[in-house]
């Protein structure tokens, strides 16, 4: 097991190196906005642009730039400074990452528990009214765009512009202090972000569980006289849930790179908003930083999922 984890860790580091090279190539080699011009502002003289290019090291050879970039990135987690406001990208990321983590982890707990619960009920009550109602509802939630649902929730339930003033509204998270206060401001964002995912997980688990419940070992378990509840949860769900765990890991990883729409509609300063704003401004240093955060999150979550998988199913420890 230790060798397996070490091997996967090495692959993850290699993957991040490759991603860093790709992002470097995309931003520095392919035609894109000139960072020096972006920093120089409006109507810059060529001399000013040249001078800034020199300051940013953009007039050095490509290998020298890449070495500098990689060295700073891997040894100091340094992405340089924002091209638009000269703030350290590292500080921008560290400032916003906790907000995204808080949003995503909270939502993930909700969607995982709700999705698994609904999936089990639907599978167990297959063909019943409950099954049809739950799966129909899931389909509606999957089809509803997150942004639209966020706006609807705000206009219905927020305590500033809502019809029924129940939950804190857009921007409240930034004004909240303390764990429980922050949690309260995130209730709506969590529910909105969790809704679509919960629906997907419910459908995924339902189909997996239905398939699993027809397996021979389930019949064996029942023949041994085990209680139905134990058969479903211990034998059925444990096997059916492994693909769900894989998807969960990747979803969390991807969302760590920013739940842009949810962060935007609820005005939460997370990585997604940072990335979005940076793209709009051609702030390459910040885009690189947020891209690497996303890549690292996905890679790390894949690693975690693989390790978890190995625990759940010893056959995958190749």
């Amino acid at each position, binding site marked *: 097991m230790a060798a397996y984890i070490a091997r996967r860790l090495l692959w993850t580091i290699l993957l991040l190196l490759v991603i860093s090279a790709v992002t470097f190539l995309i931003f520095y080699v392919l*035609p894109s*906005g*000139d960072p020096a*011009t*972006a*920093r*120089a*502002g*409006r*109507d*810059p*003289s*060529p*001399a*000013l*642009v040249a*001078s*800034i290019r020199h*300051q940013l090291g953009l007039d050095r050879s490509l290998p020298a730039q890449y070495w500098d970039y990689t060295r700073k990135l891997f040894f100091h987690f340094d992405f340089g*400074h*924002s091209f*638009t*406001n*000269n*703030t350290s990208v590292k500080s*921008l990321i560290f*400032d916003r990452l906790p907000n995204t983590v808080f949003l995503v982890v909270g939502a993930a707990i909700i969607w995982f528990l709700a999705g698994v619960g609904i999936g089990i009920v639907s599978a167990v009550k297959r063909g019943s009214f409950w099954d049809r109602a739950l799966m129909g509802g899931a389909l509606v939630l999957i089809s509803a765009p997150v*942004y639209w649902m966020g*706006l609807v929730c*705000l206009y219905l339930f927020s305590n*500033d*512009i809502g019809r029924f003033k129940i939950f804190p*509204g*857009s*921007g409240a998270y*930034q004004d909240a202090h303390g764990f429980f206060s922050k949690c309260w401001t995130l209730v709506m964002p969590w529910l909105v972000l969790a809704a679509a995912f919960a629906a997907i997980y419910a459908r995924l688990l339902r189909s997996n569980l239905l398939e699993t419940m027809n397996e021979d070992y389930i019949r064996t378990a029942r023949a041994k006289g085990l209680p139905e509840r134990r058969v479903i949860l211990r034998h059925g769900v444990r096997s059916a849930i492994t693909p769900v765990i894989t998807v969960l890991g990747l979803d969390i990883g991807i969302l760590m790179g920013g739940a842009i729409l949810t962060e*935007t*509609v*609820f*005005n939460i*300063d997370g990585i997604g*908003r*940072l990335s979005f*704003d940076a*793209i*709009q*401004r*051609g702030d390459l240093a910040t885009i690189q930083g947020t891209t690497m955060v996303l890549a690292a999150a996905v890679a790390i979550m894949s690693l975690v999922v693989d390790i978890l998988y190995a625990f759940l199913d010893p056959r995958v420890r190749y």
Partner: protein
Amino acid sequence: MTRSHLRFLLAGVLGMLAFVVAACGGSSSSSSSSSGSSASSSAAATKKAAEAPAKKGGKITMLASSDVDYVDPGHTYYTFGEMITLATNRPLYSFKPTDANKPVPDLADGEAQVSADKKTVTVKIKSGIKYAPPVNREVTSKDVKYAIERFFSSNVGGQYPGYFQVIEGAPKKPTTGVKPISGITTPDDHTIVFKLTEPTAVSFIAALVMPITVPVPEEYAKPFDAKAQSTYNTHVAFTGPYMIPNDSSGNLTGYKPGKSITMVRNPNWDPKTDYRPAYADSYFIRTNASDANVAARQVIDGSNMLLDTNPPSNILKDLVTKVKDQYTSVPSGGYRYFPLNTEVKPFDNINVRKAVMAGFDRNAARLARGGKYIGDIATHWLPPDFPGFQESGGYKGFPDIDYFNANNESGDMALSAKYFKAAGYASGKYEGNNELLMVGANADPGKAQAEVAKNQLEKMGFKVRLRLVPQDSVYTDWCQVPSKKVAMCGGAGWFKDFADPQSMLEPVFKGSLINRSSGNINYSMLNDPKVDDAMNKAALLEGEPRLKAWAAIDKMIIQDAAGIPFIWDKTTLVRSKNINGVPNPYIALWDLSFTSVK
């Protein structure tokens, strides 16, 4: 000044999901009379708000769709940055909300003195103005000298050197590190003297309202300015009624880039030295606020709140028709236009350009941006409420120019045909094979506006290839690069740097300023020696002759058919019910030093 791209971009992008062009419901008419009255009524409303009795105290929150470009007064250039600068700092001269055309002494103690040859400008500085903590000392003329010198260094990257390169010894290109400028002297701590290379004291004095003249304490700022990219931006020493909270080393703890800016009272500010009343105790500006619709609703339904810029068009319509007492429309002091690149075929033919101007439906382009509430349809370049506007024919434009005036706001295809025929196209439409490259923003409202322009050109027989790219890239990678041969930029804008027509026309249309590598802002590539010559002469004039001269240049540019000015922007500023919001027409944003809680 180009109005902050970021501001419009983010407002547009965050609002785009709800941006419905049709929702603006603008009628196709915009009579001159109504336009005129709206401009004057906005000025009256601003004056009334500024002079209304107000109470001190309270905390005001602003939801801003964008962020400050730089807090450093030597580096900031966009209006949002100027809004912060005006509340936290004191340039030599500034504008009261009640008059956007006549600056008043701010740090300066009285009017600037001009020598007989108009080549020396002397400014006296008030006593008793102190920096906020941690500097805590009195401002001297040497601080203004240093502020201007640092502006020219690449470490700081001042963005409008052209206005100040007329000072003797001013660098023609950015210096590495801060270098002294021989043409600026400080005979004593309260006097600063500028020696100019040209007799252009009038326009030079007009430029002294810009943030470059905000004092910077050399001994404090030097370590920050010594860095390749100055970090003074996060350590600014303030002189205005408000300051951004900082720690003992001056680090701005109240400025969180991309998130928020907090402003509190400056304990060292002496109201006896300032015309600003500074009513509110503090401001909290949430930058890069979320969905524009939500933010606007929060301000309208809430209390103690301001919105920084135009709300989405659907809310704008509600405001104008239902709410009524929670907004002020302020002329932005600028124009939006479609440049016609005079070096790209077939726009190298003046009659083709005139045909395009004649047939172009400016009202459709305005609708694409949000309709009649967001501005008046332009009939020439100099905007309303701006020096030279009336001399340029006011809202009606130049009656003797048939292809561009108030009569063809929605395009006149018959007139267009006349000019196409003059250009040699017998059908009255373009018949050539040249494909026009147009570049526009890939987000509304820029996208919608570019698409309208494309349709207009296709209606006249042109083949158009429209490239939609990210907003900033429209300029930096395309329109500002002459070698890209962009026939028409799918939307450009130019906004005043200060209240002088020279700053509105010269940077955009002077042939000698064309930059053939990059960073060129003469998108029309207009290189008319007559225009350049007239500009050089007009730069030396004063008073009414100056206004008339620049109005004549306005007309010459229309006669050269260098572009299609289609809108004179207005900014609609929104406030909560319990806020007495006072706009400053100079920046077309709220004046935070005059705004108060009712």
